[in-house]
């Protein structure tokens, strides 16, 4: 009974236990949807959202700190950029090695290998890059929004007659993710 009395971050014991069991399969399912994106519906967007949901579930159920401990905000931001840079790099390679067009598919697949995992040329690579970007971007949005501490001295709407328009304050602009 002692463990139930201690205040712990996160939700109740049932939720925490089930999350500990499920976080692996959810992540795996998301990776499956990303990887098979050229054969089955899904692909980068849908799979990325599921991967992000695995981490968000951990954050919600087990407390913010344990979620951020696994996938920190800095790492998410870096993976975000790396994902899209890989996407652009693969697209750029299409110009040099293939028919000279951006995003041309320059890996050819023999006919017997269609509908398997390693087919479709560069598309799986692009799906993986997209999945990386969407997952880290969505997780970063969630982490930033739940971590926003509303200032203690919330100003009331006493609209005093200000003599000059307020100049720029030193609050940092929030990180907004770019469009995938």
């Amino acid at each position, binding site marked *: 009974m002692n463990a139930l009395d201690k205040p712990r971050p996160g939700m109740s014991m049932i939720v925490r236990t089930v999350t500990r069991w499920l976080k692996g399969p959810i992540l795996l399912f998301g990776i499956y949807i990303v990887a098979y994106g050229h054969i*089955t*519906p899904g692909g980068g*967007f*849908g799979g990325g959202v599921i991967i992000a949901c695995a981490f968000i579930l951990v954050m919600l159920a087990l407390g913010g700190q344990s979620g951020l401990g696994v996938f920190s905000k800095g790492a998410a931001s870096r993976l975000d950029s790396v994902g899209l840079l890989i996407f652009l790099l693969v697209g750029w390679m299409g110009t040099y090695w293939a028919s000279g067009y951006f995003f041309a598919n320059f890996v050819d697949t023999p006919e017997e290998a*269609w*509908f398997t995992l390693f087919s479709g040329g560069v598309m799986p690579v692009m799906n993986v890059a997209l999945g990386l970007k*969407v997952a880290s971007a*969505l997780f970063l*949005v969630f982490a*930033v*929004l739940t971590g*926003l501490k*509303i*200032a203690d001295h*919330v*100003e*009331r*709407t006493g*609209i005093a007659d200000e003599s000059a328009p307020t100049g720029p304050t030193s609050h940092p602009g*929030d990180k*907004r*993710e770019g*469009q*995938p």
Partner: protein
Amino acid sequence: MIYSLCLLLILVGLYGVVASRQTVKIVISLVIMQHGVHLLLLLIGYRDGGSPPIVDPGQAVTTFAGLSVDPLPQALVLTSIVIGLGVLALMVALCVRLYERYGTFDVTEIRRLRG
């Protein structure tokens, strides 16, 4: 008939944007309106008695094109959903910051800029 239901959803969203007093309700109404627009876009690609747009192994392209619903609007809606997600995140962050600055979620009180 279904198209008019889509239009109803869009109008409900539009009414919410115009008539809501709270910033968060405006955001939610915008999301409802976007859902209506996505449904409209999906419905345009529908074909009566069509099959899902997944090619089976060994199926010829022409039979597939003759049977399935139009896959292009589905790709468009997917992209649009993700765009809407980005805009939603931005709007929610703005609502939180507005609360920090003005102390209220009420749009009629957030009116420093006029003229």
